[in-house]
Each structure stands twice: as structure tokens, then as C-alpha cells.
């Protein structure tokens, strides 16, 4: 992968999308081959790589407030107690949650919880962001809003992103490159470069002829794998 690239992975259920992400994160070890980051093999997770899980409800600490959840990443990074409040404040502002610092996850909507998880990941100041169907459980409007926010956050931080999704439109809308996986055994079946202008726009981009062409190509690929 190129640094700063936004790669989307799509594929039918059970083809290894999440496994690929966990391998990239260093949560699993490959049975053969190697995953490298900055030229070094990934034997365990690294601080420069942050992971956004789909099930935000399980990934957040229910006994900590929003601020406390963000703080966890800072504590892990050895940031001093005096520095934390300012950083937490800035991060919550960044993801659009100012004024919710003292709320517990159970008091927040799904979209807000996922924003909170993203804030915690940004607290790691990651060079790479791995996202596992992060918006899969959210409603369509919230999802579109968060897609644009992720794009602008990523553009601002210049992080490399691997984004797993089952939503083909979302993959094309967000990605510089889309990879489609084939199951049994999991392998790359299609690779599409997305040369759509940035910044992307929910209406203009999705009406772009190139978008529609890629969409058709990807749909045909997925359909073929399901037969």
C-alpha cells in the first residue's frame, strides 16, 4: 500500500474481509507470508495503527465517560495527566462531540458512539487507520454524514486507511482503490483504481459516470462470486 492511500475491501460474507484487517492490525498472525509495516514484520499490534471496530457498543468501556474512553488511548500512550484534558477536548471537538464529554456510552446514540470510538483511535495519532465495517450498524443518514467526516479527518491527518465494508457504493465513494475478495480460499478477485475527484460529494460523486461504471463492474463481480 502507498502511504496515505484509502483502500476499501469488499466481498461476500465469509470471504475473509475482517480476517485480512485483523492480519493487517497484527491481531492475528498469518499462517504463511508476512505482513510488514514500515518495512518491519507485524508480530503484534502497533500504536501507530488504530482499529475502528464495527460493534462500537462492545468496543467502548461502558463504565467510563466519553472523555474517559478517549483518555484510555492517551493513558496507553503514556501521555501525562496534565496534558490529557486539552487533548481529549480537542479530539471530541474534532469528531463533533463537544459537550458530550461527561456522557456514558449508554447515554449516546449509535452514531455518537462510533464517533467516540473514532476519537479514541485518533488519540493514538495513527499513521494507519483500519476500519471494520464501521458504519454497518448505522442508519443511512448518519452513515453518509460519518463518511464525509471520516474523509475530511483522514485528509487532515494524511493517514493510510484500510476500510472493510459490504456496501459497494460506500467503498467506491470513499476509496482510492477498491479490492474485491473471493472466498474459499480467501484471495483477491478484483482490484479497481478509483479516479474520482476529491473532495467527494454525496450527490455529485455518486452521479459521476465513472462512479456508475465502477459500481456496475463491482456489482457484476460480487454477483459472480455468489453463484
Amino acid at each position: 500500500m502507498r502511504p496515505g492511500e484509502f483502500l476499501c475491501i469488499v466481498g461476500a460474507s465469509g470471504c475473509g474481509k475482517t480476517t485480512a484487517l485483523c492480519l493487517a492490525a497484527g491481531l492475528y498472525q498469518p499462517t504463511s507470508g508476512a505482513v510488514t509495516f514500515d518495512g518491519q514484520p507485524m508480530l503484534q499490534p502497533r500504536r501507530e495503527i488504530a482499529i475502528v471496530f464495527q460493534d462500537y457498543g462492545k468496543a467502548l468501556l461502558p463504565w467510563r465517560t466519553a472523555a474517559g474512553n478517549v483518555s484510555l488511548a492517551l493513558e496507553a500512550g503514556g501521555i501525562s495527566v496534565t496534558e490529557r484534558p486539552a487533548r481529549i477536548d480537542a479530539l471530541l471537538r474534532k469528531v463533533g462531540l463537544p459537550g458530550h464529554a461527561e456522557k456514558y456510552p449508554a447515554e449516546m446514540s449509535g452514531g455518537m458512539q462510533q464517533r467516540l470510538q473514532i476519537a479514541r483511535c485518533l488519540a493514538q495519532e495513527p499513521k494507519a487507520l483500519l476500519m471494520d465495517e464501521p458504519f454497518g450498524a448505522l442508519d443511512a443518514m448518519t452513515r453518509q454524514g460519518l463518511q464525509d467526516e471520516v474523509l475530511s479527518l483522514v485528509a487532515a491527518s494524511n493517514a493510510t486507511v484500510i476500510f472493510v465494508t459490504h456496501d459497494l457504493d460506500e467503498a467506491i465513494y470513499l476509496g482510492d482503490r477498491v479490492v474485491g475478495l473471493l472466498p474459499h480460499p480467501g484471495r483477491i478477485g478484483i482490484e479497481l483504481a478509483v479516479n474520482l475527484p476529491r473532495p467527494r460529494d454525496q450527490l455529485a460523486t455518486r452521479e459521476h459516470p465513472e462512479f456508475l461504471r465502477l459500481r456496475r463492474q463491482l456489482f457484476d463481480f460480487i454477483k459472480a462470486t455468489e453463484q
Partner: protein
Amino acid sequence: MTLDRAKPLLLPIGALLAFEGWARATHLQSDSLAPPSEIVVALAGALADHSILAATRDTLFATFAGLAIGSLIGLALGIAFGISDTLDRLMEVTVEAVRPIPSIALLPIALIALGFGYRMEIVIVAFACIWPILILSRAAVRSVEPRLMEVSRALRLLAAQRVLKIIIPAALPRIFVAFRLSAGIALIVAVTVEIAINPLGLGAGIMLAQQALRPDLMLAYLVWIGAIGYALNMLLTVAQRRLFGRAALSGDSL
């Protein structure tokens, strides 16, 4: 409403009144029974001369000291076994062999090793408390949401941070239930040790009253021990609700 609430009290109060009436009518002479009115008088007397309060202090001291020591050991082992499968497998046979020993069966050994007094009683209470805490905290650690463990790995939390910031808070509501259970066991074991052999506390008080042929005082002790056990459980139940109201709530929504 008030009548509704009083209903569960109807039967015990009725039984007490009937017993009182029967005892008076037959001019009860017994070494094991006494009419409720005499029990109340005996209890008031024991409270007035502070003898029952001193005994309560002794019993509760042994109970809480044993509970604290047993809980700490049980918790440390439970967390270690819950985290490390290797350690758990290594210790499996040992734990299962030692655990079924009734704690009171240690009495002769403890008596020879430590003599009469607090230390022997505390050791036996602690032994009894270790097991429920160990077993339940091990299960609680095992059932910590696996996603949280992945989060802690992804954030590169140190082992100590992982235990203190993720595992213990996540398992704490269930660990507290184990603690509550153990508190009840601790009181039972402490009084048992005192009745069996140790010359201090409420258990010794009961035995003394029995040997003095004072059934009223003996039963007063019995009522008092029941009240203490009830109060202890109430206290911990309220504490549990206060401390983990929110955690229990969010636990439901997961």
C-alpha cells in the same frame, strides 16, 4: 398498602404470640426453649451490660479480617487463572483437590499451629472465602467482552494496565456478587469456629449461655446473630445497587 406490606409479618408474629401463650399456659420449664418475652428481656440485658456487643465486635473482627484476606487471595488467583489458561490448567487438579475440604475440618490443624484466638479463626474464615471468590472471579474474567481485550491489545496497554483498566472494572459487578456470597459464608464459618472451640465472640456466647442453662440468653444470641447476618446482607445489597447500578444497566444493553 400498609396492610399489604404487613401481610408477610402476620405468620411469624402470630406464631410468636401463640408460643408465648402456650409457654405461659403450661408454665414452660425447659433447657432449650424460652418464651419470646424472656428472650427479649435476656437480649435487652445482654445489650445493657455490653456483653453481646463485645462478642459481636470479636466475631465481626474475625469475620471481616478473614473475608478481606480470603477475598484478596481468591481475587488474585481468580484473575490470574482467568487470564492465563496455562496457569489454570497447571493448578486445576490442586484447586479441585483442596477446594472440597470443608473449612471447618481445618480446625484441628489450625488449632495446633496457631492456638486459640483470632488468628486461628481468621485463617479458617479466609480459607472458606477463597473458593467462591476464586471460582466466580475466574469466570467473570473469562467472560469479559473479547472485543475489549482486542481493544486493549490494539491500544498496546501494558499487562498491568490491562488488568487494572479493563479486566477488573469489566468483571467488578460479578466479583462483587461473589464478595457478597463470601461475606455470608465468612459469618457462618466464624460463628461455627466459635461454637466448636474458640472461646470468643457470639458463638462462644451461645455455648456459655447453653452451659449456664439459660435458654433465654442462648436464644437471644441466636436471634441477634440472625439479625447481624440479615443486616450484613442488606448492607452489601444496597452497596451493590449503588456502586453498580449503571454498570448493571449497561451490562444489560450489551
